[in-house]
């Protein structure tokens, strides 16, 4: 009895020491902010009612926490060895969604499973990260050969192409920095990376000419001059394309800028944001939740939010640096890269630093798929941190 109790005590101490409290705490903080601001964003001043999304978000967070618990139980080996299968399954779902997906606002991104809609591209992000981590962990030398890097790029390119077919430019573009970060972390030579980046830059004009649809170009161009978007478009688009540009009048960007800017230093107060509650801000509970926070809590709230994300990212990087398992190292870097990129792009588009794409703010925006996948990513970080040997042991381990 006493021995068991002592053993449990030792186990608890080991858990407490190994558990990544920084990641967990920042996640908890972000989830709290998410619930608070989705509640605020679901308020409708005209009817004095709250939309369903606040309730739904609570359900998603609950499910996500359950997923964390479940994923913490999965042994590391099983995760590592199943990476190719997960990748294959996700590719299959990406192909399938093109055929049996639901059309919404012109793109086929979702599976309709009864009342909920599942977005396979969200899962594909993590699956690809897993696949790349598995690929390099098998043989770290691959990162230093051009052949190995080319193979890794192919792994990333397949989902990119499939997602571009949906079309979902924003999600597809996420893969680029994530893949590059993983290649870099895996030890790719600088000249190889430079070569890839140069090739990528050369491909940009081709992409502009052949891949992008007029409305996508329009949205990118709105970013240049939100107050007078037509002007910029006339410069860069042909007559025919100009006719087919739609939904690119800069409304979203203008409203978002007004929301963020009018927040000021301390904000207008929780649930007192006029851009938010009066309904000027579009997509306020998903893409523009950052603007809601910025309007109601001002610069101080933004700094708190960015601080939490910073803590999450640094905590994750810390875990990656300390674990000894190569697969875990790279997988954590990939997951953190996804998070960081999404935060930078989403917050950037809210403040007019990036063109508007349909990217969510991880852990904050409303959306089942996004929330579950983000929390799964967090779970994996915690899991890897807990289960692998430490290359550089913590003080508590000694």
């Amino acid at each position, binding site marked *: 009895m006493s021995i068991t109790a002592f053993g449990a005590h030792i186990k608890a101490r080991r858990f407490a020491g190994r558990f990544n409290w920084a990641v967990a705490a920042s996640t908890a903080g972000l989830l709290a902010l998410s619930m608070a601001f989705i509640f605020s964003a679901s308020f409708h001043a005209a009817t004095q009612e709250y939309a369903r999304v606040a309730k739904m978000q609570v359900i998603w967070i609950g499910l996500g926490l359950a997923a964390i618990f479940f994923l913490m139980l999965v042994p590391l080996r099983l995760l590592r060895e199943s990476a190719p299968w997960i990748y294959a399954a996700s590719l299959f779902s990406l192909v399938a969604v093109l055929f049996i997906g639901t*059309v919404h606002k012109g793109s086929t991104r979702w599976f309709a499973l009864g009342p909920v809609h599942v977005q396979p591209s969200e899962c594909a992000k993590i699956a690809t990260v897993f696949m790349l981590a598995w690929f390099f962990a098998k043989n770290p030398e691959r990162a230093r050969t051009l052949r190995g890097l080319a193979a890794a790029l192919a792994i990333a390119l397949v989902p990119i192409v499939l997602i571009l077919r949906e079309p979902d430019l924003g999600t597809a573009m996420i893969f680029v920095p994530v893949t590059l970060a993983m290649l870099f972390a895996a030890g790719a030579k600088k000249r190889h990376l430079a070569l890839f980046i140069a090739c990528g830059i050369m491909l940009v004009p081709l992409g502009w000419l052949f891949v992008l649809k007029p409305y996508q170009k329009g949205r990118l161009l709105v970013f240049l001059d939100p107050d007078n978007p037509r002007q910029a478009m006339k410069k860069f688009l042909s007559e025919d394309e100009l006719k087919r540009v739609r939904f690119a009048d800069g409304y979203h960007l203008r409203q978002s800028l007004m929301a963020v800017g009018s927040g000021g*230093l301390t904000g207008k107060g929780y649930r007192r944001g006029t851009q938010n509650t009066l*309904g000027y801000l579009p997509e306020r509970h998903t893409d523009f939740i950052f603007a809601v926070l910025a309007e109601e809590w*001002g610069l101080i709230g933004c700094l708190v939010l960015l601080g939490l994300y910073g803590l999450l990212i640094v905590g994750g*990087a810390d875990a990656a640096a300390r674990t*000894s398992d190569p697969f875990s190292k790279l997988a954590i870097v990939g997951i953190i890269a996804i998070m960081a990129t999404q935060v930078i792009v989403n917050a950037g588009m809210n403040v*007019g*630093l990036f063109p508007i794409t349909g990217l969510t703010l991880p852990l904050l925006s409303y959306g089942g798929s996004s929330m579950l996948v983000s929390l799964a990513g967090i779970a994996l970080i915690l899991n890897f941190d807990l289960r692998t040997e430490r290359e550089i042991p913590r003080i508590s381990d000694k």
Partner: protein
Amino acid sequence: MAESDPTSSSKTPAGGEPDSTRRPGFPGFQRRVLVLLVLVGLAFGCMVSRLVWMQVVSGDEYTEKARQQRRYIKILDAPPGSIVTSDGSVAATTEGTFNVAAFLPDLDARFAAIDILVWYARPNRRTLLKRMLELGDAVATSADPGTARLFALRLTPKCVKLIRKAAEDDSDLSASIIFRKNPADRELFDLYLDYDRLMAKSFRTIEALAAFLGVDPAPLHRKADDTARKIFRLTNSFEYRARRETPVTLVKSVPERTAFELGVRAAEFPGIEIQTDQRRYYPGGQFACHVIGYAGVLSPPEFKKLKAGGRIVWRGPKRFSVLDAMREGSVFFANEAVGRSGIERSFEGILAGMKGVAISERLATQASPVVHEMIAPVEGVDVHLTIDSEMQRIAEQVFAEGEGGEPLAGAAVVLNVNTGAVLVMVSAPGFDLNSFRNPREYEKLKEKPSPFMNRAISAPVPPGSVFKILIALGALEENAISDRTHIRCRGYLHNPDAFRCRNHAAWLPPFGVSEALCRSCNVFFYTAGERMNAGGGVRLQEWARMSGFGRPTGIDLPGEKGGTVPDLGWKKKRLERAKSRLAELRAKEKKLKRRFRKAHEEYTRLCNAEPETKESVSQIRKVENKLREFDRELQKLYARIESAEKRLDWAQKDSFWTKGNDRLLGIGQGGVLVTPLQIARFAAAIANGGKFYRPHLLAADGRNYLDWRIDFSPSALAAVRRGMVMVVHDSRGTAHHRRDENGNRIPSALSMLPVAAKTGTAETNRVKGLNQAWIAGYGPIGNPEIAFAVTVENTKGHGGSVCGPMAAQILAAYFSRREGP
């Protein structure tokens, strides 16, 4: 992590430690992760600096932008006040009316079709609408109208394919994608395939509505369609939404009963609704039209005048900044009716009240705004007039009945001699205040002689013999004549010359001043006038000016004229004016001629040019037309120059002051022009012993309207009054009798009343024998209460015969009431 040495970790695997061989790691992993972290840190740094810039440095700018976007202003109209006469009858008021309006999205199926197509098929709304309009204008000659129409809309081929498929097969997956299995949507889609069917609902509803209201349906169709097209063309989606939600007024001011029935049968008229509105209503119609005046929309120059007068005029949209203007004072909007004449104009400020304003937070969605701040409107104040509605009505009737059913043009004024209050002010012909804007009515009005001019105050005319009262009084006061002065009249002044007198028999003994007034002897007053101005003086003119002639009386109505009291200065000014006018016309002529010559040169050049193309021919046409127009203008100009030359010629010949001028002034001719109001006020001054009150229409505001007083010597006043009494009550008087059908002298109606008066007949058109007939006086004789002036223009009759009976009818109402029923 920061304390870890990057070199040590990168060297450990290379060093061949057992741990790294067992599990090969990534060289320099920690350093590389650190680099990545620095990159992320840089990005976060950018973000923070951007946030500081937006929220702290330029936060106010965005705050203002957001505020302007959501605040919205509603102007609250104040109900204007009524105009009430002294006996309490309402002359102008504001009443609620019902308008029939169309709520276009419910009426016109195009709106719904467009919404559905834009949503499901996703073409650009603007291009879709454009095609749709083209379609409606010129489609339907193809064998397969459905396909033709779809292609005419130039949807993407994929979209057309989907729609075709959906139309053919109900169970098809694409149909469910497009129409979400909603039968209502599908019905609209079918409608959309057939433009005529799409429009049928609107067509049917408007036809039914027109039949119900008994109006012509064509303008209603046009209005609904034009508005819909205008809305379709809007590019701003906010504006588009706002405009389509605003009902369009189709028919204004329907009777209450009709509005009620329409409301009951609403189901039969989908998309038609009843709006309440207010309008200015004049229960009396034509009653006192010139006094009351009307309200209308101002023209831009009039706006400028208003602005110059310190009123705030808002011409732009109702934006936020209007608030500051409204806090400062009464604001007028460019499209708003403002008092334009009469009392409606002069008391606009108090009648209109003050507009209020409600500031709301507008939601981005179309829900009702939440009122945030409000300035309540201030109701307009009623204006009470001094007008006696019974006498006014009779006076108007008198003019309308006229001589033997022929309506007369002229004016009548009755004043209270002790206050200056205007009891009657008529100008004939009048117009119906409620319906004169109606085009048909307006055409009819155009045939009448200047119906909109208020002849009582703004049309000075020669006074004729009425002026003799002033001359008699002035001459007595100036000692030019005395009570004992007797002048014999033989029908002309000295010899048979231009200064004739045909007002009485030529063989009578010499007249004193009273009898001269009674008989209206010209010779007596030629002499009096000449004597007053003896030795080159201008005492006559001074007396005229002292008695209020030659300048406005200052009545509280807009557009009053002062008339003319001629003297040498006036003649010189007239000459100057004629000269400058002619010079102006000549300059114009020169300019026109130069342009004419230029056009002609171009014409010859074009005609000689080779070869002749289509363009050159059309250009020649154009120049030809131009030349023709120049020619017409020149002809007009020549006519004007000719008349200006004549006028100058006359002014040059008549540029000296002669005795003849004084003599003519003595009988109220020779350029002197007065308004009936001035004459009435002068008559009032005679009656009250020299007190000149300012005539006014605003009742009982406690002000003393006495402008000035002249202390006439009692003997002079008595002589003049005696003369005026004799005009009516002495058998020799010009207004004492009239001739009946058999030519017998019978006492006139006026002589039955206790009034004193003076008649006048000024020649206005010698060729046609037309006169300006006058009668002016006061009553009752012993203790005067009212003074009056009645004038009729372009009549063949004389003051006594035309104006006398009219004045008698108007005054009879007063005296009968005074004596009690």
